[in-house]
């Protein structure tokens, strides 16, 4: 068995719209995802994440390059690919005039389950995602978050080898986000390969075995979460506590052009690009008579992300 579930080589996608300049949404993207992994596609708005997923799920032809799912070519063997995947699209997708239960039923049938199996699994995900009380309501009458919950619940009804999730948890409340994350983890443990995109970096950090950061159609960084964080190894994260925050201290600290800076009630968190700045920052902080203490640590995924996608193109390559 091929240990690689998804193999993407040099994928390019140029959108042509009449009367508008062409948009190069993907500019030569390559990555490989081993079976059973949770793989994250991260990147700012318009980076090309959804375009990548659309090509991998046979919705969109690539301009050039190749992509294989479980060894099947997405362009030449789309039917084989579709037999092995299930997808949560970024846009909402539901039969608004059917009841929640009927939406689950049709989904089961489409994925080859028989009537009895469909009922069993529909009941299971209805319970898992706490949708029982809406069972007989038409989707058009449900809130946005509930529609999203149903859309995500559907993919957990079927056992497909590869699962694609495009910002699956968007619009969900905290409890259902948790449920979704737990369900994703559980599915991966069963040996499925999961590809997800997200803007919530903590989510990516918690879930992903490996990830790529895409920016303007190119890969800006890739590897395991730890690898990617290492790109920011020279970044230093400093947390300083004060009895009370003084605007003048904040202004003074800004002078060090941190990657990120956040002020809370009585603390300031900063990510610095140069280790040598740490002492200078602490000196500036100590000048404030309300200074209490400080902590120094490594960079978070978010720091790396912010820094990478902020770089001008030449540097990020």
């Amino acid at each position, binding site marked *: 068995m091929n240990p690689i579930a998804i193999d993407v080589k040099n994928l390019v996608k140029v959108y042509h719209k009449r009367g508008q300049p062409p948009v190069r949404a993907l500019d030569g993207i390559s990555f490989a995802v081993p079976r059973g992994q949770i793989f994250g596609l991260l990147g700012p708005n318009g980076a090309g994440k959804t375009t990548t997923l659309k090509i991998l799920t046979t919705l969109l032809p690539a301009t050039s390059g190749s992509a294989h799912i479980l060894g099947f070519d997405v362009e030449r063997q789309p039917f084989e690919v579709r037999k092995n995947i*299930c997808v949560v699209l970024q846009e909402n*997708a539901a*039969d608004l*005039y059917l009841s929640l239960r009927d939406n689950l039923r049709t989904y089961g*049938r*489409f*994925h*080859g389950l028989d009537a009895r199996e469909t009922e069993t699994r529909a009941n299971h995900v209805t319970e898992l995602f706490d949708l029982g009380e809406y069972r007989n309501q038409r989707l058009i009458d449900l809130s946005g978050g509930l529609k999203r919950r149903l859309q995500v619940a559907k993919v957990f009804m079927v056992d497909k080898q590869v699962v694609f999730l495009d910002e699956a948890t968007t619009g969900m409340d905290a409890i259902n986000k948790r449920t979704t994350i737990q369900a994703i983890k559980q599915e991966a443990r069963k040996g499925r390969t999961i590809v997800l995109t997200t803007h919530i970096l903590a989510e990516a950090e918690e879930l992903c075995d490996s990830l790529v950061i895409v920016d303007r159609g190119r890969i800006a960084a890739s590897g395991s979460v730890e690898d990617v964080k290492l790109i920011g190894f020279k970044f230093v994260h400093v947390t300083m506590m004060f009895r009370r925050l003084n605007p003048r201290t904040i202004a003074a600290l800004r002078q060090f052009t941190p990657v990120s800076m956040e002020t809370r009630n009585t603390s300031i968190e900063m990510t610095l690009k140069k280790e040598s700045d740490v002492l200078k920052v602490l000196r500036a902080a100590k000048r404030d008579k309300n200074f209490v203490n400080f902590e120094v640590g490594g960079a978070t995924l978010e720091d790396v992300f912010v820094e990478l996608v902020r770089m001008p193109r030449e540097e990020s390559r």
Partner: protein
Amino acid sequence: MKAILAVMYREYKIRISSLTWLFYDLLMPFAYLLIFGIGFDRAFSTGIMLSGEFVTYNDFFLAGVLSMACFGIAINTSYGFFVDRDNGIFYEFLTYPMTRGQFLLGKITFNCATSLVQTLIAVLLGAWVLEIGIRWELLLFVLAAVVLGTSGWFFFLTIFALRIRRNDMFNTFINVAYFVLLFVSSLFYPIEPLPGWMQTVAYANPLTWHTDALRYFTIGLGDLSTIALELVGFVLFLLASFWLAVRSIQRLI
């Protein structure tokens, strides 16, 4: 096969979600025949001359009504694409384990079943209430022609429903298509008395081919060799439309 059944199951669920719609769908052709047909039947009380024979307008118009009903079901089904696209579910369908062709075939199989039921209602009530002289031995051919017609028009309209992305533009397109195809055809009146240019257009119109075949199969009027040619033409039209419709799905996103 499983995929086609799944599409049919979903069409069925959608259809029974509105009983008014179902009722309208099934009775529309007969209602048309009853109101429009009776009006014209009285207005042209001498009947209509066709292939050298006089028939009542009701006899003549039954094939027109059935042909129009196939066209109507095809329009409704192709409008469904706009609803599905707005709901986003259309794109999700395209990631399901089925081919584009199976998706279209599943949709049309269910809707052909609806066409068949409404045809039977119109034919039976037409014979009973309006005393139309049905050639019962040809009934199976009527049903086959209804399946061909509904599918042909559905595939044809699908090409436009998928390429014209705007609902309002598609509306305009349907209005124009309806106007040209229906009125320059053998649907409401025989073609022979029409001026030359109109005859030419009418004979190039697949709706004429389909209506002529239905007319032959319902009341036995028409020239068999012409009808055979028209049927072959319609099947080619259907196949070409199917091929283009499948291709249109690929260009969609």
